[in-house]
């Protein structure tokens, strides 16, 4: 009735589905264990601070430079469009709202995923491949508590801070292009921005977004590393999956969050 090819295809679809559900289950169990074992990392803040340096501080350069350029492009393009309608004094509002609501959290999360997320996956994957995680287990130290939890919290803490830096740098970039180079009125640039940007509606929502992205990226990155096949090929595949999956997750989550947050606005 069915030829062999069809049967194999159907079987593959089933296999992939079951496999994905299994992995989702493992990932959920993994994040639950991470949260349960986080107490120890907060008692030993030194562990989190060390990871904050590697994930947060070392990502600052790329975040600040990208923020500046994105802000400059926004200032330039925004001016072109607003000028057509004679409302270039609203440039400050356009730059600030675009950054604080969308571009700040999303762009910095994408950069964070490729800069820090991939590094986390590679590091943990290699620790697994070189039996460092097994050695830790044999020394009666839980790798989830000692290795995974501090990295998770460092990622969750640094993501909103990096997003804030991105937005601040972007606003400055918009100011440089709009006010200093093109010559939009400085007073209206800042005053309109101040009156239009709402703390609760815009800034807090932006921070919530970046916290959600921080959780998603570090969860994906740590799980992919922990679950990687302990070979060179396995670790490189896991690193790629971290960047791809977390980028897609960021964009998907951003749509969902935006739909909930800015319904009436």
């Amino acid at each position, binding site marked *: 009735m069915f030829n062999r090819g069809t049967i194999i295809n159907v079987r593959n679809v089933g296999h992939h589905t079951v496999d994905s559900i299994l992995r989702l289950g493992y990932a959920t169990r993994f994040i639950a264990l991470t949260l349960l074992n986080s107490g120890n990392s907060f008692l030993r803040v030194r562990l989190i601070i060390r990871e904050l340096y590697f994930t947060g501080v070392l990502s600052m350069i790329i975040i600040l430079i990208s923020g500046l350029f994105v802000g400059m492009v926004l200032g330039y393009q925004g001016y072109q469009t607003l000028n057509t309608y004679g409302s270039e004094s609203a440039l400050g509002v356009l730059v600030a709202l675009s950054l604080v609501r969308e571009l700040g959290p999303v762009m910095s999360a994408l950069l964070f995923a490729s800069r820090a997320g991939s590094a986390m996956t590679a590091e943990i994957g290699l620790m697994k491949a*070189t*039996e*460092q995680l*097994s*050695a830790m287990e*044999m020394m*009666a*130290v839980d790798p989830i508590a000692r290795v995974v939890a501090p990295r998770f919290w460092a990622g969750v803490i640094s993501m909103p801070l990096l997003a804030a830096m991105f937005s601040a740098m972007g606003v400055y970039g918009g100011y440089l292009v709009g006010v200093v180079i093109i010559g939009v009125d400085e007073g209206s640039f800042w005053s309109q921005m101040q009156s239009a940007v709402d703390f609760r509606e815009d800034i807090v929502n932006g921070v919530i977004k970046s916290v959600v992205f921080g959780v998603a990226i570090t969860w994906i990155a740590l799980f992919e590393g922990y679950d990687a096949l302990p070979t060179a090929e396995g670790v490189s595949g896991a690193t790629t999956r971290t960047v791809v999956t977390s980028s897609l997750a960021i964009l998907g989550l951003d749509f969902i969050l935006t739909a909930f947050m800015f319904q009436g606005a």
Partner: protein
Amino acid sequence: MSVAADNLIEISGVGYSYDRRRTILTGIDMVIPRGKVVAIMGISGSGKTTLLRLIGGALKPTQGTVKINGQFTHELDREGLYRMRRRMGMLFQFGALFTDLSVYDNVAFQMREHTALPEEMIHDLVMMKLHAVGLRGAHRLMPSELSGGMARRVALARATALDPMLMMYDEPFTGLDPISLGVIRNLVRKLNDALGSTSIVVTHDVQEALDIVDYVYYLSEGVMVAHGTPAEMRASTDPLVHQFVWGEPDGPVAYQYPSKKFNEELELV
């Protein structure tokens, strides 16, 4: 004193399989007396490392029991297992040093995790452990700056950090130059006797191991086929053991991986 009290480890009827098709170990019986150095030998893929993982509690036997220091490992919960592991040390094949920590911090790792000792005392202990393996001067180096032999010695110092009652060595002689190999071989014996611990050496380096161990268990395809003292193993007439001990290319263990006839492969009729 009863016989059982003299044995640190008693393994009876242990079998292990990943699933119904892949059986790794069947019907393993062995005892490891306190204070002895015991080797588990066999060719690659014979189930040696799996047996070691069963003893360390990383795997649970699918049949039979593993009893360590009077406790059945499969009855232990996670806490109990961790408590037991604090009294075990394991040397991994390539050292498995933490690459983000210095030699000093690697050796201090367990002391910091499991004890509340002041840092000055940890310093003295770490220096003593490193001195025992001849690497006190290397305490500031990072693992990436060590040679293979040095890394293995640091890992040995780390594994003995808390003076374990049981030391496990997973292929400790693999890939070492002759000098490092000699150093590690002597350390295995010396540390065992100095710490009053018990050691299990999983290895396929026959001659190195036979010189230092008290007793040998020989595994083949997941079954314990022979055991005895090193002298008995050397004199064994069992063809499997004889081939293994003297490293002969052909015997019960075939040199050729199962394949079709050579003239068929080359299409010569």
